[in-house]
């Protein structure tokens, strides 16, 4: 099951890989607006960091994923991988990095 919440994608996974718990309930914060994709009730979720990936466990029957500019998505109990939408840019290979 794949959900899209603005530029954040959330997909149900079977198991949580080896990961470290992370405090809070914010999945991603907008650089421009300061608005954030977050869970309404932090007590209903546990975030994890596994390398570059973020995972979330929904501990209640459902947890509301909210944002100032997007409709709420209720996520059923379970484990999810979370990632951000990508955007193509030739800069990735040509960028000045000195």
């Amino acid at each position, binding site marked *: 099951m794949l*959900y899209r919440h603005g530029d954040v994608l959330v997909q149900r996974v079977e198991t949580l890989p080896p990961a470290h718990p992370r405090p809070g309930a914010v999945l991603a914060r907008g650089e421009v607006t300061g608005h954030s994709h977050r869970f309404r009730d932090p007590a209903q979720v546990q975030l994890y960091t596994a390398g570059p990936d973020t995972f979330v466990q929904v501990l209640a029957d459902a947890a509301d994923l909210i944002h100032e500019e997007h409709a709420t998505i209720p996520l059923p109990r379970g484990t999810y991988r979370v990632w951000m939408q990508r*955007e193509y840019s*030739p800069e990735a290979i040509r960028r000045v990095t000195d």
Partner: protein
Amino acid sequence: MLIRTSLSGPGHPLAPASTRRVPAHEARALILRGDVRGPLHFRGTLDLSGVPLTRLPDDLSGDTLNVSGTGLTDLPERLAVGELIASGLPLTRVPASLRVRFRLTLDDCARLTELPRNLSVGSLSVQGGLSLESLPEGLDVCFLNLSRCDALSRWPRQASVRFGHLTLQGCLSLRDLPGWLTQIAQLDLSGCRGVTTLPAGLRISGWLDVAGSGLSGAPAGTPLRWRGVQVDERIAFDPGSLTGADVLAEPNTEVRRVMMERVGYERFLAEVGAQELDRDRDAGGERRLLRIDLPGDEPFVALSVRCPSTGRAYVLRVPPTIRTAHAGSAWLAGFDDPAAYAPVTEA
């Protein structure tokens, strides 16, 4: 340039004369056997990265130590090395007895909340220190990389980043820079939306990267960059004066890309007239795949969609090989195979 470090000048012994001294590979074997008693000094690079470890012996010293990805939750006491690479560890703090002479790398230690007072090292990198809210008093470095330290909001009253580079990419909680920052070669404030001014006494000798920062201007004569690309003040701070024609007339492809970003893809597409490659509908409404040929560069291909929640149109660039609107949506979501992309809900 003289780099002052936590240990005094060349020739200063990293370990007392009574310490056992061995090559790095021998030290590695001793440590993995759990056979280290008393102080141990190694020569060369001791690479333990990726080896599951629960602890390292105290009083370890040597040249370069790499303990990245070992799972260590604590660093040993009185560790004294030239370079320490300790990335991706579940550390919450670093012992005050740690001595690193040249380079200390603590990247992606997402649980790190505390660094020791008076930490002094040539180069300090704490990229991805998501839990770090403040830096220690008395910090003394030449190069400091704090990229993606999402929670960082407080600077020490007294500290020093002298002459080198300060990298603050994506420090979303930062609201200012410290007054003790007076001279620096390179300052990267890209993504620091909350930083709107520079300290009055700050001199930047190299360049200032302002991409996505809150700055609306910079001291006259400061070379500017936008995510690594050299730009002028107009591109950086007055994008409203740029036109689609200006973008197409720019010969440098990197600068042109930044100009497109500054003009905004929507306005750029409207001003230059784009070819429609494909059109369909998804849960969010109508999608359009658009193309503009750029002189001397690969074509600009982008998906124009409307957000189902806000109703706002937005345009996102996709690889020029994309041929359908659905494939563009799938690629943006991270799927190389369009058939694998089928969201149940979009909001």
